[in-house]
């Protein structure tokens, strides 16, 4: 018996990289299949081949047992395959309904066929939105929707071409817990309706919860397929990284000494109010809270990116004047931002130019750059953080997500910060690199660096933090020590209504 979609012996080569070699894959209607592997394992390439973005060099794709060719995104569409990419493909200025029918607009019959049929568009859109679990005005511009609701628009779009296969690339990486639940309900519903769902994710909890079967890729090879209930975390991680990782998070005890930083009553024009906290040498301070709770905004105010409207910052017991990132860096603060592609890297520049970008003064004399010093600094970080790159001249856009993140971290370590802020440092990063970054944080703390880590992953917050600040709607809702913190306590604080005051 043949599956709905079957891939045999797929290979794809890019210059210098064998992205996929002889990969098999299959998914049947009414099942959710997980596609997992580290960054750079070939998941994205496989998806892009199925989406018609890349063409395979070799291999066969069968739909219901019959061979098909996918050369363009239109081919893929026509075969009933929809891919929901991490960076959603929506036009922000257009409405939900217009996005759903983009390129396939509904028109009246006959002489008016050059015009749009608004009534039917709205009706059909409403139906599809309902199936996708989206409740709003179909004429609302997509740009005004939250990320999770944008994803639902993508699902509705997929349903509008009666897709038989829906591929979701890291759909939960930018969602809050609640939004993730909603997405899972939709996936369940799709499954019941006989749709085949391919679920790409790094989060093992979600994979175990949602998937019926798992395909594992490593370095472009298919290393295993297994029903979810016949495997466990340890086995999966071993398959993905090819080695035993032991415990996922490593946190060594560091000596926590003097207070380095004190933020008093911070407020900014981006909606945070009255946030105070302190940070000590060798400490890892976790910032927890829902997406949009103001965690990032506190850091942006602290780092001088957003305009501070109130409060003061005290460093080493002296008030510090921080009006822009330059002054923050001068005070020994480093900031690894949330979105490495948009805020962290200059994608068109090479590894070396990115690594030295925040410390150009240190690799130059009298304003002239020293090639030798730049190379030396970069080489030391490539080694220290084991950045996988063909060379220092590699343009960073070609690196995998995990290695890109290591480049951003290197850039900040090159400034020898005493205070390092990491905003979602391991989001969208494979398990192996994640562990390396945690190890690095622990080492830095041991060397006396004071670290602030924002994370939406509670297990990460709990594993890494000495102390945890919980935010909600732009305010600090409470603080927990490592010993008293638990998932439940954090969630309770993160969800607490504003009327209950500040803890």
């Amino acid at each position, binding site marked *: 018996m043949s599956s709905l979609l079957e891939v045999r012996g797929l290979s794809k080569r*890019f*210059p210098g990289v064998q992205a996929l070699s002889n990969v098999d894959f299959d998914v049947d209607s009414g099942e959710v299949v997980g596609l997992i592997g580290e960054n750079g394992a070939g998941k994205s390439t496989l998806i892009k081949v199925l989406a018609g973005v890349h063409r395979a060099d070799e291999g066969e794709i069968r739909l219901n047992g019959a061979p098909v060719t996918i050369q363009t995104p239109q081919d893929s569409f026509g075969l009933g395959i929809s891919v929901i990419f991490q960076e959603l493909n929506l036009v922000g200025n257009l409405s939900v309904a217009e996005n759903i029918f983009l390129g396939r607009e509904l028109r009246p019959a006959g002489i008016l066929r050059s015009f749009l049929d608004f009534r039917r568009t709205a009706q059909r859109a409403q139906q599809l939105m309902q199936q996708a679990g989206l409740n709003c005005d179909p004429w609302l511009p997509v740009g005004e929707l939250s990320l999770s609701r944008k994803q639902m628009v993508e699902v509705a779009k997929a349903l509008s071409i009666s897709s038989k296969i829906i591929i979701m690339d890291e759909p939960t990486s930018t969602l809050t817990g609640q939004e993730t639940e909603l997405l899972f309900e939709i996936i369940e519903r799709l499954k019941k309706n006989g749709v085949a769902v391919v679920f790409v994710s790094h989060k093992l909890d979600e994979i175990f919860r949602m998937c019926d079967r798992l395909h594992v890729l490593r370095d472009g090879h298919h290393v295993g397929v297994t029903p979810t209930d016949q495997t466990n975390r340890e086995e999966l991680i071993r398959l993905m990284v090819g080695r035993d990782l032991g415990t996922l998070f490593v946190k060594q005890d560091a000596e926590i000494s003097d207070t380095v930083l004190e933020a008093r009553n911070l407020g900014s024009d981006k909606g945070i109010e009255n946030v105070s906290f302190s940070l000590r040498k060798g400490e890892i301070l976790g910032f927890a809270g829902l997406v949009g709770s103001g965690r990032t905004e506190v850091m942006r105010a602290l*780092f001088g*990116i957003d305009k501070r409207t109130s409060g003061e910052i005290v460093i080493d017991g002296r008030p510090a004047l921080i009006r*822009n*990132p*330059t002054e*923050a*860096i001068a005070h020994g603060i480093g*900031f690894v*931002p949330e979105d490495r592609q*948009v*805020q*962290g*890297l*200059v*994608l*068109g*520049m090479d590894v070396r*130019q990115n690594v030295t*970008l*925040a410390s*150009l*003064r240190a690799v*130059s004399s009298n*304003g*002239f*750059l020293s090639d030798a010093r730049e190379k030396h600094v970069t080489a030391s970080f490539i080694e220290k953080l084991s950045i996988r790159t063909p060379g220092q001249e590699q343009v960073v856009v*070609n690196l995998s997500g995990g290695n890109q993140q290591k480049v951003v971290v290197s*850039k900040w370590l090159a*400034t020898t910060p005493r205070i390092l802020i990491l905003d979602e440092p391991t989001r969208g990063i494979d398990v192996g690199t994640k562990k390396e970054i945690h190890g690095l944080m622990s080492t830095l703390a041991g060397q006396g660096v004071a670290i602030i880590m924002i994370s939406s992953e509670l297990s990460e917050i709990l594993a890494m933090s000495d102390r945890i600040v919980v935010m909600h709607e732009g305010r600090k809702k409470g603080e927990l020590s490592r010993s008293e913190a638990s998932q439940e306590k954090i969630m309770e604080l993160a969800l607490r209504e504003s009327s209950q005051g500040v803890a």
Partner: protein
Amino acid sequence: MTVQNAKQNAKLRAVFQWYRKQARSSTFGVALILLALCVVLTLLTDRFLTQTNLFSVMRAFSFIAIIAIGECMVIISGGVDLSVGSIFGFSGLIAAIALNRWGWSIPAGIAVGMAVGTGFGMVNGGLITKLRIPPFIATLGMLSVVRGLAYAITSGYPVRVPSEFNVLGQGYLGPVPYPVIYMAALALIFSVFLKKTVLGRRIYAIGGNEEASAISGIRVDRVKMLVYTLAGLLAGISGVISIARLGVAQSTAGLGWELDVVAAVIIGGASLSGGKGTILGAILGAAIMGVLRNGLVLLNVSPYWQQAVIGLVIIIAIAADQMRLRGDAAKN
């Protein structure tokens, strides 16, 4: 490339690999186009490949090329400056007035011309960084303002410059006209500035990703201020050299040049979205247009047709480059 000996396969392969590597850079593609153009013109006319003609072509495009050095830095930083043609004209005009009517010394005349260019560059920078006007609009407005000032202060009459000043634009060092030397020197200085200094690196960085650069501690507004000021300065320098060359300053000097200058930079491999480009590329871009103009004259193409042909070549050159880059991207 001719095969001289079939046994030299290995050597040939090495050359081919070197070529493949070079071919990745836009500058190499531009140089090839320029070379092809020169070969064609050498074959079609007997007057193209003469020392006199080549240096006179180089002198003719040196004024555009010097302005293009500044424009190149602006475009790398992610902006654009449309006012350079007007600034070029106005700076020359003020220098001429200072020399002719106010009786200033030659160094003072040169200085005032350069200062005027620099001043307008700073105004552009201020409009863009302080008033947050998009570069396209701000410099489009200044294009008109500065041109209007040139008309207003001269009522359209040309201003002659003293003949002892003319040697600076009309003289030769050996066979090489002075303006070509100025161009080469400025191109060298600013190439080193862009590639070897902290500020140069920052110009590329803000053009590549402004937000990431700001978070990395780069004072983005200061860098922008600097590039527009330098663009004004270079337009001013070019304006002063041009009046020395022509012996007269016209209120219409540099009219419409912003198009040639931007085209030179883009043909030279820079991207209007920023972060990419080289001074050498911009000079080669200006050279392509200069050689083409010269070729059309030598081939007796009617002046009425020349403009259209040049426009067409600009489009073809950029389309070819895009196709080449896309081919590369597909291979990647």
